[in-house]
């Protein structure tokens, strides 16, 4: 036996890698759809690590100054700080994606109710921790965000006792309490994550609807014992996802770090640099925004002056709905089109969330009349209701032929509505930004409609020579060329990584150029993830990975 084999055997015996209690995974589940939770966890872990590094330097008694010190004086401090910010952004976005994906596939149903509720709570904690983290910078934006948040709480007299509990002496520039709560909330997320993770392992990943069309969708012990064990295939696949997530988190903000002069509604969200401090004259010239993930709340605050109603619409109703969802949707149907009411509500939640956030970005603090509200929110509701009434669940056979999942069609509905919405925005607020948004949603719509068009066509002409055995046309030979290609790619990536790493040693640790280090490290992580993913493809991917 070779030395490496012996070493790896030694470890796998000691660590019990072969009989880890983790769930075994069937071949067909190596798609990112099934691993969204791992992406959220990857960004969580990244954010915790970078946050702990920042904790070595951050001084809660002088929030803004110590932020500036971290950016300007600590070696690679800005790299860590900016990626910490974007790590939390990534975590929020991925958590939403993870949640809504599981919403539409019905993963909250029996027996995964607790898993779902824990997840919803974690989302709330994540938003809370992000808000507090955002406040720690102490720049003009953070202070105004805290003011808005505190204002909302104080306007309910019974709740104003919470202000000192949450913010402490924030107004006097002492962020000790905000820092402590930030860490406490993150620790809570970590704790719930442990439960969430082990519950998920307990039930296993949710089988494809083709295999188990009804709740409870779990594999039996005999079924899953045949699947791939956690070590090594899951491990390899998972690490590729984790590294890629880290790569994006590092590369994007550091590349954006020197974006300046963007239009205002873009700048505070994309540019990771802090705004001027609140007591400086420059602060008077910036429009203050809440952090983007609370823009929707900020806009809802324009709808009504009654804070109780505002909290009901913006926070309590959606939250309570999500928490009790497993108990109100009691049918055992998993197909989104067989539980149209809930699917519809889900689509509307996404649409409203994005729509209201964009609205809050473009017209912050502008009051909205009841009539405008009705128009803005009724139209998507009507479209969804009509759409869902007429779309019928495709039966399994037609679906196999064309490979369009209901999820895709739902996505298309959302895209279509966003497109319509952005056209309206463009007419109302003609600017480069709205134009760019319209262009973006428009192209998504175009791509989507092409895909959907095929479905509609194939329905019209059921016999138009659709290749029935599409999956089996992939013979081992064609696989072999792909593998060859993958191997060549791996070698190229290796060379690239070595070149970049050599360059990384020459980057100055502070100043303008230091962010290049973050970009490079991000690229290296991306390539590492890609190499591992290619390795997974070449070594483990089977020619046919049937849903079983």
């Amino acid at each position, binding site marked *: 036996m070779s030395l490496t084999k012996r070493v790896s055997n030694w470890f796998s015996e000691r660590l019990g890698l072969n009989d880890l209690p983790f769930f075994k995974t069937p071949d067909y589940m190596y798609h990112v759809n099934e691993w969204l939770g791992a992406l959220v966890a990857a960004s969580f872990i990244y954010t915790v690590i970078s946050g702990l590094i920042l904790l070595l330097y951050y001084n809660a008694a002088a929030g803004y100054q110590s932020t500036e010190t971290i950016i300007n004086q600590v070696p690679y401090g800005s790299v860590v700080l900016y990626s910490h910010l974007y790590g939390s952004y990534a975590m929020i976005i991925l958590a939403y994606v993870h949640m809504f994906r599981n919403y539409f596939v019905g993963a909250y149903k029996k027996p995964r109710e607790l898993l779902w509720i824990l997840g919803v709570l974690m989302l709330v904690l994540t938003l809370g921790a992000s808000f507090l983290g955002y406040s720690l910078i102490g720049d003009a934006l953070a202070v105004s965000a805290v003011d808005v948040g505190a204002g909302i709480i104080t306007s309910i007299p019974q709740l104003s006792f919470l202000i000192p509990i949450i913010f402490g002496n924030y107004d006097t520039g002492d962020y000790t309490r905000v820092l402590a709560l930030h860490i406490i909330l993150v620790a809570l997320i970590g704790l719930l994550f442990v439960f969430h993770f082990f519950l998920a392992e307990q039930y296993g990943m949710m089988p494809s609807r083709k295999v188990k069309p009804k709740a409870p969708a779990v594999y039996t012990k005999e079924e899953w014992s045949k699947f791939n064990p956690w070590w090594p295939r899951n491990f390899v696949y998972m690490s590729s996802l984790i590294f890629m997530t880290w790569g994006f988190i590092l590369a994007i903000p550091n590349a954006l770090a020197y974006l300046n002069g963007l239009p205002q509604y873009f700048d505070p969200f994309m540019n990771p640099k802090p705004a001027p401090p609140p007591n400086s004259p420059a602060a008077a010239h910036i429009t203050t925004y809440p952090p983007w993930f609370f823009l929707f709340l900020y806009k809802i605050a324009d709808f009504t002056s009654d804070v109780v109603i505002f909290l009901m619409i913006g926070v309590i109703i959606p939250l309570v709905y999500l928490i009790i969802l497993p108990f109100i949707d009691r049918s055992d149907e998993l197909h989104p089109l067989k539980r149209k009411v809930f699917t519809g509500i889900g689509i509307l939640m996404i649409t409203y969330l994005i729509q209201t956030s964009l609205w809050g970005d473009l017209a912050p603090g502008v009051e909205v009349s009841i009539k405008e509200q009705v128009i803005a929110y009724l139209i998507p509701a009507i479209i969804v209701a009509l759409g869902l009434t007429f779309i019928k669940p495709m039966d399994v056979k037609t679906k196999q032929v064309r490979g369009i999942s209901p999820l895709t069609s739902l996505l298309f509905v959302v895209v279509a509505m966003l497109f319509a919405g952005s056209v309206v925005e463009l007419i109302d607020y003609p600017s480069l930004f709205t134009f760019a948004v319209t262009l973006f949603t428009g192209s998504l719509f175009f791509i989507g409609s092409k895909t959907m068009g095929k479905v509609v066509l194939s329905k019209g002409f059921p016999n138009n020579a659709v290749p029935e055995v599409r999956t*089996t046309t992939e013979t081992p030979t064609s696989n072999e060329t792909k593998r060859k290609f993958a191997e060549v790619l791996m070698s190229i990536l290796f060379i690239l990584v070595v070149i970049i790493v050599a360059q990384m040693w020459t980057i100055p640790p502070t100043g303008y150029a230091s962010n290049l280090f973050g970009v490079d490290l991000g690229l290296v992580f991306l390539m590492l993830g890609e190499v591992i993913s290619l390795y997974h493809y*070449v070594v483990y991917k089977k020619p046919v990975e049937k849903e079983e």
Partner: protein
Amino acid sequence: MPLKIRLGNGEKGVLKTSDLYFIQKLLRTMRNPKTRFDSREFVEKGEDYLFNYVGKNVGGIDEGRRNFLKGIVIGVAAATVVGIIPGLRVLVPPVEQATGFPKSLLVDVSGNPLKASSIPVNSPIITLYEYPLTGEPNFLLNLGDKSGNPVSIAPVEVSVPQTGKTYKFPGGVGPNNSIVSYSAICQHLGCTPPYIHFYPPNYVGPSQLTAPEPNTLTAQALLAAKQANIPALIHCDCHGSTYDPYGGGAVLTGPTQRPLPAVILEYDSSTDYLYAIGAIGVATYPEGSDGVPSQDPTKDLDTSQYGSSVGSKTQVQASTNPFSGS
């Protein structure tokens, strides 16, 4: 050895070595009773079964290729680690401090250079700037007489009671030579403003004896001011140390045993700008082993517990008026 056939005058490869190896391995597996190939199932399910079978039992690729690919993955991972190493410098705090005193322009809160002639005389508002390190506040004073006319401050010999040594305070600068600057950290136990601050002439009187903290003057302080014949003084309410702003920050009353170190200012009369260029006196509190301060203020720079060098500009902030409450 690859398998080839001859067609006319060209050789054509049919199977490569790796493919041959693969076939060998596949055949062996098919014969192995544990993983026997089920031909009946193959007839039923067709190709699907075959591919599945191959994927499951033989694996896509042979050992050598797999090891090569593993090598690449490990290589990339190792390169990533090598790339992270310089990044570990993030754990090394930037402690190397200023090696000398920077020449720092005094600027106002909006970043414009401060005009020396615009500094109010005898202002009760605590006016501070950080120098030479962040976190080290200094008073900026434009001294005047009882009636508010600027007073020219002459160079003077200042003595350090603790050591008995003396040093030369260079005197005031500015259009009237009336601008001076002292460390705002009390040399007794390190109290900072508003506990230690400047008392303009109209606040140096018996009414201050009963004023609330941080504006209380002690009877000794008043007496000392009278004896020294100075209209204003710097007093620390923590334990009652008093310093002479007109006399280079010299000690008027204890418990402090050291005068306040002075910042050396440079005045550019053509632009009316002020620069901080150094310090004189004992080191900024609380530096100095066994309580005896160094006479050399630069000694302090590399071991200070305070922040980093303020650089070429430092902001003057006049924010607190300690007397406004009383």
